[in-house]
């Protein structure tokens, strides 16, 4: 009896601990970011905002955690745009400043980071990579009257709330799903296994693909829809379920760490069909984790990267000169987000959130890497600009621009 009670209290204690864990994780995450603000540039946390001759742009990106590799790419891309705009005289006679906080691809950390940016009085938010971590920041920024130009996160959930100050400049989940299905049809896929990691971004794409496939009975059909738990190492149970459905095409829509393991474990289990991943998995680490042999020929739905953009070399050289590192996924989108923010402030001749949002809606034909910008009434891009990449050797290469 006594033992039972002890056990009970131990389990209750665990519950407490897990709850406490959440709080700790978020505070430690953002604390770390404050000190690692930027690499050799003028950015940093602290006060500022529209006053005192500077306009501060806020950015929540993952600098730690599972997607930590992406944060610096986006931070540098945004910093490059800030440097260029400042060199050309700034915006409304003021210099731009970038305030970067760590969202750790985690909802709690991202919310803490967003609150920090609000208290830092940023004028526009130009961050957002993981959709699941970006969602909780929407009401925080929107409620504080701070417009968000989200460069990378692209779940439909982000715009479905129809918040007046939230804009996406990456293709949406719907657009990515359309691109994915288009390519599957082209490849003659019959039975498709959809795999996601239960996050907002990931399930958004699988659900859209499933919906599109259900509407086109003569195209590729869903064989199985499998969700995995992110952060584990062993996915053999999920792989086993997929193998049983006997698909000829697997589409993974989560992030690269789990993606690499799943590709490896699918191949180990004897899967010989085609594999495609979504844009969250486009990273060299995917190939390393999967093993180069296993990853050969893996396709990816992706938006334009500096490496795939025609004539992108000049921009890559500029980036390299500034940061002594290669640009990566979403460097260009972060660069564009800052430029769009500056353009809107200039047009609005104001740093008021509402005025900036109105100016954003009026932008027509402003040149981005993904094409001329014109927001739809839903605050998304008119066209997604997705293309198909393929793993060749140790890197991703363009397979199909999906034009026409």
């Amino acid at each position: 009896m006594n033992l039972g009670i002890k056990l009970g209290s131990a389990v209750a204690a665990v519950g407490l601990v897990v709850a406490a864990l959440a709080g700790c994780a978020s505070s430690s995450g953002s604390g770390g970011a404050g000190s690692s603000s930027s690499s050799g540039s003028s950015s940093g946390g602290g006060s500022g905002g529209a006053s005192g001759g500077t306009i501060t742009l806020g950015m929540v990106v993952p600098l730690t955690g599972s997607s930590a590799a992406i944060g610096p790419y986006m931070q540098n891309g945004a910093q490059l745009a800030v440097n260029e705009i400042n060199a050309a005289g700034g915006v409304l006679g003021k210099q731009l400043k970038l305030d970067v906080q760590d969202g750790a691809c985690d909802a709690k950390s991202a919310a803490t980071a967003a609150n920090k940016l609000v208290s830092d009085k940023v004028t526009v938010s130009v961050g957002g990579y993981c959709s699941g971590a970006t969602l909780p920041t929407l009401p925080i920024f929107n409620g504080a009257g701070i417009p968000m130009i989200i460069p990378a996160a692209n779940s439909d959930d982000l715009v479905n709330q129809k918040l007046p100050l939230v804009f996406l400049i990456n293709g949406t989940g719907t657009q990515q799903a359309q691109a994915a299905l288009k390519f599957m049809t082209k490849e003659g896929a019959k039975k498709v296994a959809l795999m996601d990691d239960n996050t907002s971004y990931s399930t958004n794409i699988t659900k859209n693909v499933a919906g599109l496939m259900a509407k086109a009975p003569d195209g590729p059909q869903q064989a199985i829809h499998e969700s995995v738990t992110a952060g584990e190492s062993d996915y053999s149970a999920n792989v086993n379920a997929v193998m049983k459905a006997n698909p000829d095409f697997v589409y993974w829509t989560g992030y690269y760490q789990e993606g690499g393991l799943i590709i490896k474990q699918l191949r180990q289990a004897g899967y010989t069909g085609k594999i495609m991943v979504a844009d969250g998995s486009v990273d060299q680490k995917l190939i390393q984790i999967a093993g180069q042999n296993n990853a050969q020929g893996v396709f990816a739905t992706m938006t334009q990267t500096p490496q795939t953009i025609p004539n992108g070399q000049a921009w890559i050289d500029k980036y390299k000169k500034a940061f002594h590192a290669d640009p990566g996924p979403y460097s260009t989108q972060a660069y564009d987000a800052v430029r769009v923010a500056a353009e809107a402030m200039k047009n609005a001749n104001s740093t008021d959130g509402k005025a900036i949002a109105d100016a954003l809606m009026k932008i027509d034909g402003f040149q981005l890497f993904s094409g001329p910008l014109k927001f739809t009434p839903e605050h998304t891009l008119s066209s997604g600009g997705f293309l198909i990449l393929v793993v060749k050797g140790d890197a991703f290469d363009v397979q199909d621009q999906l034009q026409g």
Partner: protein
Amino acid sequence: MTQLIWNGIFIGAFYALVALGYSMVYGIIKLLNFAHGDIYMLGAFGGFAMLTAFGGSVAGGSIVALLIVLVLSMLGTGMFGVVLERVAYRPVRTAPRLNALITAVGASFTIEYGTSLVAGPNPEVYPVQLSGSALHVLDAHINIQQIVLVGIAVALMIAMNLWVLRTRSGRAMRAISQDPKACLYMGVNVDGVISWAFFIGSALAGAAGVMAGAYFGTVNFLMGFIIGLKAFTAAVIGGIGNIPGAVLGGILLGLLESFGTAWLGGQWRDVFTFVVLILLLTVRPTGLLGERVTERV
């Protein structure tokens, strides 16, 4: 079916190795060592560092080289466990139970984010990965390296059980779990024996970490968190404080997850697993082997 069982046993072996340390420490000083999962992660990183440093000489990926790294990592994590107990847990041993629990949570974060500072937040890829051909046994895919890993895990568990049952310090450990004060009066070196328990539990977790790194091929600083929770669950199912129970709990958890995924899909795996576990704990509140063995180590 065979495949499901094998998958369950394979992942269950990892849970069991980590669960042993949880169970042993709880059995002796009634402390839930939440940093235990992170010691698994440290083992994986220790192996990673060694294999990276001597990458050239073990490039063949031979089992022997990995075994040497495994033993060295076990020694390393074992000693880390001893230091952790000395620095973090011994000062609060007489304090109320919750203080020690919070200390353990703090130790866990310290290890995780300390590793992140030293080794970087990005996932690392193991330089040497086990590769081997697959066997087909009753229409199941079984890799040679999986068999080797399960074999190593079983050998470690047997060795540890023998140590607890047959050696002098093992006997002292069992005695302390019954009554630490009386042991102290009888002249048993309580602190020394507790250090031994931490050494062995941490070494086993470290071994699991190296094996996971070599098999799955990737390590990151948060990899110990989920497996730590799972191993704790396994220890509770088996009857926390009970050594064969921890092994049984680990294997059972692995099997439940494997079958849950197959029957209900990956979305429902954890729901299925934990519903079964709650039912089981309702029927047997002390876990599978918690009551039958009165002597808890």
